[in-house]
Structures are given as C-alpha cells and as structure tokens.
C-alpha cells in the first residue's frame, strides 16, 4: 500500500500531504523533514527510488514541484511512479497546464482530485476518464454562488 504522499517545492515547502496510516503529528513533521532533505539532495538523472527505513520512496520532479510517495517494501516501484504520473495528468486535465500556483491556491481541489484517485493508500480508479467524470460531477454539484447563498444550511 501507499503509506503517504507528499508534494513539496524545490525550496522544500510542503504543498500537499496525505497520510494513509495513523502517525502522530510529531512523527509526520520528522518524516516530512527527512523526505524533503533526502529527495532535494538527489542529483539530477538519478533513479527515482530510494530505500528509507523499511519503506520504498518513489519521487519525481515536475517543474518546480516534487511528488513523493512512500510504499511498502514488497510493492512495485514502477507502477508507483506511474501513480504519480497519473495524478499529475489528472491535475493537468483539471487545471489545464497545471503549475505549482494552481495547487497552492486550489489546494482543496488537489485533495478532491486525489481522493477520487487514491483512497486508503490504494488506487481506486485507474481510468483517467472515470476520475475526470467523477470530478466534473462533483463540480456540477457545487452550487452557484446565488444558489449557495439561498439554500438553507441544515
């Protein structure tokens, strides 16, 4: 399974985090620090995989943003790398030429897209069309501002 997903910038600023196992906040901060230093220290054109404790860390850089997954030891590295790629494609499709700023300003959307794709540390839907359809459907549900304001809350 996937243990966690982190998105951080070249400067080491965290942009997104999703944890699929119960970990204390303290421990999370430590892991985030470890991951950013470790991944940012990697030379260009190195391989995309690292061993870290008893986990495999899979990372890939897209422009200024690093996507970093930790998976169990017996999991498949290459398919995890394509999990990252697929997520980037989904973001790209939604935002159109996605950039780091999109994710900063619409972090909640980035989470929603992720939740349609990965849940509980496993891939839920591998078809791009299906995920996109689900996200579009959820956007359709979002009320226009006028509707929103006039709808009762409870």
């Amino acid at each position, binding site marked *: 399974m996937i243990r966690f997903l982190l998105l951080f910038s070249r400067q080491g600023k965290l942009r997104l985090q999703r944890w699929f196992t119960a970990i204390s906040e303290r421990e999370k901060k430590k892991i985030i620090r470890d991951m950013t230093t470790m991944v940012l220290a990697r030379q260009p054109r190195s391989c995309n995989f690292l061993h870290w404790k008893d986990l495999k860390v899979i990372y890939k850089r897209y422009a200024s943003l690093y996507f970093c997954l930790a998976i169990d030891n*017996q999991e498949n590295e290459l398919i995890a790398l*394509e999990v990252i790629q697929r997520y980037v494609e989904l973001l790209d499709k939604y935002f159109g030429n996605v950039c780091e700023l999109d994710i900063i300003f619409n972090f909640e959307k980035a989470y929603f897209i992720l939740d349609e794709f990965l849940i509980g540390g496993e891939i839920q839907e591998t078809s791009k069309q299906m995920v996109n359809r689900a996200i579009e459907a959820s956007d359709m549900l979002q009320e226009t501002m006028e509707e929103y304001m006039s709808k009762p809350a409870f």
Partner: protein
Amino acid sequence: MPAVSKGDGMRGLAVFISDIRNCKSKEAEVKRINKELANIRSKFKGDKALDGYSKKKYVCKLLFIFLLGHDIDFGHMEAVNLLSSNKYTEKQIGYLFISVLVNSNSDLIRLINNGLKNDLNSRNPTFMNLALHCIANVGSREMAEAFASQIPSILVAGDTMDSVKQSAALCLLRLNRTCPDLVPMGEWTARVVHLLNDQHLGVVTSATSLITTLAQKSPEDFKTSIALAVARLSRIVTSASIDLQDYTYYFVAAPWLSVKLLRLLQCYTPPEDAALRSRLTECLETILNKAQEPPKSKKVQHSNAKNAVLFEAIALIIHYDSEPTLLVRACNQLGQFLQHRETNLRYLALESMCTLASSEFSHEAVKTHIDTVINALKTERDVSVRQRAVDLLYAMCDRSNSKQIVAEMLSYLENADYSIREEIVLKVAILAEKYAVDYTWYVDTILNLIRMAGDYVSEEVWYRVIQIVINRDDVQGYAAKTVFEALQAPACHENLVKVGGYILGEFGNLIAGDSRSSPLVQFDLLHSKFHLCSVPTRALLLSAYIKFINLFPEVKATIQEVLRSDSQLRNADVELQQRAIEYLRLSCIASTDILATVLEEMPPFPERESSILAKLKRKKGPGNVPDIDDARWNVNGNGNAEQSESAEGTNKFSPSLMADLLPTNRPRPASSSPTMLSAGTMGSAHPFTDLLNLNSSPSAGASLLVDVLSDSSTPASADVSEENFSRFVCKNNGVIFENQLLQIGLKSEYRQNLGRIYVFFGNKTSAQFLSFSSSVTSSDTLKTQLNVHTKPVDPTVEGGAQLQQILNIECLSDFTDAPVLDIQFRYGGALQNIAVKLPVMLNKFFQPTEMASQDFFQRWKQLGVPQQEVQTIFKAKHPMDTDVTNAKILGFGVALLDGVDPSPANFVGAGVIHTKNTQVGCLLRLEPNTQALMYRLTLRTSRESVSQRLCDLLSDQF
C-alpha cells in the same frame, strides 16, 4: 492569482494565500498567520452564528495554515458542522478538514461518526463516497467499531453503484488493516471473490487490492480467487491494446490491475490444477516475450508501465521458485536491464536479482553477472544504485567468489558514501567470516576494514573478530603477529588499538619469541597509543597490561611502573583509577599461580548467532537481509565453515557425524591458559616441521599410500582439525592435529582385521610437557565393534622432543563411529586437554580383490537387493583429475579394476572388508560427469550398513 477558479471560489481564502506569499520574511509570515488565527478564533467564538460560507472559508484557511506547517488546535467542531451540512461544497470541505487533521478527540469522533452514518445511509452515491473516503483515509478504531459490519453489505449489494463499490472495497481494506479483529468474515467473502469477474475494471482493481490483503491473512478462505485471477490476467495479457479502452495506459493493457493480480497470486503456491497452471505459465511467458518486442511508444510512461508488469511477473516467478526455465529467463531479462540506459531499470534489476540469487535454480545464473555488478559498484553515479549493487554482491556471494567479492567491497569502501559505509563494513565482516576457509584471510580482512573505515566498524564487528580468534587456536599466532604489525602504523584507528590490545593481551606470548616483537616491544607499542585513546579503550589496555604481567614476568617491573604513575593511580576517571589500583595490587601480592589462574586465557565463547548478522538484520529490517543460512553461524567457525564446504552439494553427513568431526571445538577446561614463565625462544622456528621424516619405521603397504607431504592440495597452514579426519580416509599417514604447543602425526598399517597406529606427539615449545598422558576412548557401541589397545607413554615430553605411542586395533564387526584420542598434559602449570578423533574407519580393513569383468558383473547382479545398494550423486569439490581419483580409490583400499566398465571414464573397484566375525565383499562404481562437475557413486555389499558407511566415507573425497 490562480489560473482557474471553478465552482465557488473563496475570495477571502485567495486573498489570504496571496498575503502569505507576499510576506518578505518568515517573521512576517508568522505574524500574518497569528493575526488570521486570532481572527478566525474570534469569529468561531463570537456570539453571532456564522453562515455556512464563512465557516467553510475559515476552515479552509485553517487547513492552509496547517499545510504551511503550523499546528491547528481548533476548528474541528466547525468542520464537523460542515460535514453534516446538506450543501455539497460545505460537506466536502468538512470531510477534507477531518481527514487531513483527524484528532482522536472522543466527543468529536462520535459526532463525526454520526455524520458518516447519515451519509452512508443517504443512498446518495456522492455522499456515500465522501463518507467512505473519509473512513478509508482516517481508518480509526472508533470508525471501525461503528462501520465495519455495515460496509461489507454495501460492497456486495446488487444495487450499489460501481464507484461506491470501489470506495467500499478500499474502505474495508483499510479497516481490515487497522483493526482486523473488527472486520467479521462471513457470507460476503465468497461474493467479494466474484468481484474479480466484474465487468467494470475499476471495481476489479479495488477488489483485487482487498482480496490480496484478506488472502494474506486467511489464504484458505480466498483460494477460489486463484482461478479467477489467472483468468482475468490471461484476458488482459492477451488483449489487443485498444480492447480495454481507457484502462489501457500508454499502450499497456491495465497495468495497475495486472500488477495487482500478480501480487494476489503471490499469496499462494503455484496452482495445483494443471490446466490452470499452464494457463498461468503462458501468461508469464507472454509477459516475458513482450519485453523483447519493440516498444509501442517512445514515452517513458509506456516502458514504465510495461516493465512494472514485467517486474511483478518476475517477482511471481521468484516466489514460485519452481520453474527453472522461467527463472533463468527472468534472470536473463534482468541481466539485460543491468546494462540498460535507464537508471531506474538498472536499479530495479539489481534489486530483483537479489531475491533471484537465493533460488537454487537461478543462483548460478545470477553469478554470471558478477562483473557487471562490480562494474556498477565502480561506475554508477547514483548512490542508491550502488547500494543495490552492494546488496546483490552480498546476496550472490558464495564460496566460489567470496574472495573476489570481499576484495571488491573493500576497495569500494574507500570511496563509498558515508551513508552506507557501516552497512558495507557489516556485510564484509559477515562474508569474510562465513566464507573463510583460511582464517588468516578473515583476520586480514577485518583488520583491513578497521584500517580503511575504522569509524564505521561497530563494536559488534571487532567483538566478533576477537570471539573468533579466541575460539580458534590455529589463528591466534597469526592474529597476534598481524595486529602487532598493524599497530606499527603511526596513526591507527582506535578500534585497531582495541583489537590489538585484546589480542596481544591474550596471545602476545605466541609472537614473543621474535626479538622484534619481544614482550617489552609489544608493551611499548601498545602504551604508545594509550594517551591518544578514549577512556573505554584505555581501560581495555590496562587489562591487557595486567595480562602481560602474567604472560611475561620480565616486563612486570616496567608495567608496574606505568600503573603506579599518578596519571593512572589518580586518574580522574573512576574506572581507570580503579583498574590501575587493583591491577597494581594484584601484580604485587598474588603468587605466580594465582596470577595465572586469575588471568588465564579467555575460555571459548559459546556458539550463538553472529552479533554482526543480528545487527545487519536490525539495520535493514528482518526481511531485507538476503538469505543467510543461520545454521552455519557459530563462533567455532572452523568446523562450520569447512563443514559447509565439505558437505556442500551432497549433505552426506549425519548430524552426529558433524558433531563428531569437531574435535578441537570441544569446550576447553577452564584452566587451559599456557602461562609463559620463560618466553625466551617461543615463536622461533620449531625444531621440527616434518614429523614423518624423523621416523624411519617402514610402513607396510606403502605403495597404496598417498603421502600427506607430497599432496600439493594440502595447504601449508596450521589449519588442522576434523577436516584432517576425512583426509585420512584415503591415506594412512600425516598430521592429524596441530596447535601452538603440540603436533600429532600418525602412521598406520592395516592387515586383514588388524591395524597398528604409530602416534607421534611433537612438543613444539621449548618447555617440558609434564604429566603427559594419552588414551583412547570409544563409545559403548564402538567398544563392541572395535578393540583398541594403547601402550602407556612416558609422562614427560621435553621441549622440542617427540614421543611415540603405539595403538593396536582389532576390528570385530563393521562400525561407523571413530575412537577418540584424549591427551592431557601440563604446560607451564596449566593443564591442557586435547581430544582428537582417530581416523580409524571401516575401509581401513579392506583387502583389495582383483577380478575379471565377467566375475565383477556376476557378483554385481548377485548383490541386486535394493538394501544392498547405496547410491549418491554429488558435486565435485576438487578438480576432476583421473590420476588423483585413481589414487584415492586405491587409497580407499579396494582394487581398481581396469577394463570392466564399458565406459573408460568410469571407475570400478572391488575389495573385501575383514572383521573378526565376518568378511564383507564390496563392489563400487564411480561415474564422473565432467560437464556437470558431478559424480555418481554406487556401492554394493552384502550388508546395508557397510554399503552406507563406505558410501558416506568415499563420497566426501572427490
């Protein structure tokens, strides 16, 4: 500002994010955040009820602040309110906040669970999905308690929408992982398996993940999934790339699902059903074949997806470990990847080969890539790839390549990345010990490790070298000499000082005979390092000094002087001060005898798992240490290392024989320390090097002997132990035992059922052996089979002199055990106890029988009862040389019959075993296969026990 803003953008949030981004300094950012937090807190606490929109906006701001790395300790309540809202946008944000910032506040959990329950029961698939995602992502025990029984029914209900099924499957998976006790197995499990047949590939993918996890825990319950998984996999693998529409990823059909199905199959052994098994084999072959096809796209995503499936298929092949063809194909495929231009593939190939190396079918195939792997170690730019290369070298190491691999790792160590040095040190130490045939090599290797990477040599490593040196008396002299030389370096690592101090303190006497390493020189050398060392090392050195006082009375005054100095007696460190005072007093008041008793040589360490291996396991996690045969690990390395060599391939030794073969590894009595009272000439050339030359008594049947001294395969090292026992199977004369004090040589003659052994005890020291006695003991069974008469010997053996003892032997009936020669004597006040297994074997009582081809086959047929024949097939351990084999068979005692076997390459022999009670005729046939480097040995005798024993004895000789 954001490029897009779909749905209802929250202006306030965007403004806040912009503000934060515009902050020029960290302080400014913190200030802005604190201001915002105060604002939000006051809004939440304010009297005026907040509208949903504001709540949502503020909760989002909190989330953003949290993502920036700040702790958020409020807002949960508002988030729960949002989650319970009937407005989708609010609900979504509420769930997001809870799933990102979950907090095991029990009151809150109840409220959250309430919201989840409403949504799960809403029959609105969108809401249900939100709830399921939240449960799957949080997965707390409270949620499991509340929903674990409800989710299975959602999963298998006929009217559940596909997307909800997917969420439910993964939700159940998560709950099963966190609280397996709360997820009841039941009627739903059978129906879950059938989801593998679902039309919707997304449902199949989620279900496969769930089934894999469940099957790992209770494989029996999910056995039916094998057939379904194979069928599904087969359909995917053989489909055209467009068949699966959007589930085709860069021209690869359903890679995620394929990988998951292959993982599911790894929960089980190969299918028993032949048709199913061949269908699966076909799938695996197809996947391997596809790897050779030209790529359908140049995109890296295409090759990644394709190779992900390939690697998972290889993992399954390795897991089954039953199809040699597939294993070798897998190995070849990985071999291609070893030189691929993609770093990722090189990395994965190295990693995957590590597991392949432990399969008996592919170990040899993996070994053929050794040069590529060594090259990777030298040339890869990426440290993680180099690390995998180190792992693979470790995994592929065996007796044949251990010297090369250890040498390569050592040379890599000099430039290795700091992060992996300690691990390499551990690995080198483990391999050097495991494959040490020659323990001088082991000692050299460890000292090199300390020299090159002293900082990374952990305690376990240097403890271990000391344990081994203590337990193996044949390497002690060499170890003392080597550490002495290593300590000459002007700057040597403190770990070396520790090892040096310990070893010289125990065994410095063994090199003290040379004036260049006289006791005083040794002491001065150690003491020159003293002031540069840390407190623990100094403490260790002080102990070495007091041991010196015992070993070398002539340096007592010098050492007492050192102990007496203020820097010792008044040392600020209490441990050092105490040692100095106590040791000084001990040296002053104790008599030589008491001193010798208190400071006797360390007794052998008990056998246990190597502490180094334990450390590597800790470091890498138990699953990550490539397979090491733990049984081979014990401190008394001698027996084991060589045992594993001699038993390799054949495993002929019964456990009791194994134990019997270790005569020198018996626990020594407590007082076994040679106390050196006059260490004058010790260590200089021994007065004799060749026992046999000193004795001129002619040996009967000398034409059959293979003289130990002309046997070039015998190493000149002092490595004499049970291995010598088996060397005496085919010859009668030679050195059976040697340590620093004593050498024991044998000359034996046998005629019919009688034998005579001349035992020569050589005193290698310049001092007398007193109270010398030597007797033969046999097990109770053996006493009824073999009579051994010993003549008493002179109780004194002068320094450098040799003593002869004659043993008369009579064989009453066939036997398997061997008598043991027990030697006791006092040397320098200490009692020495040595036990040597006497090489009296059944074949010694052979009389060769010449016979013609016709007679041979006639008798061969007569001995055709199955119990009369024993056959074994084994690997050649020595070069397959016809002349040597001839000599060995003759030495075994039978007549070598030429022209009997139709194939000239085969060896045929005949002889009669003479015992007092009976005579046993024996025919043997040895068939070498020079291509496979194997032999087949067949023995036929009229007695089963004789056939078996002779087969055991002889099969070990080639």
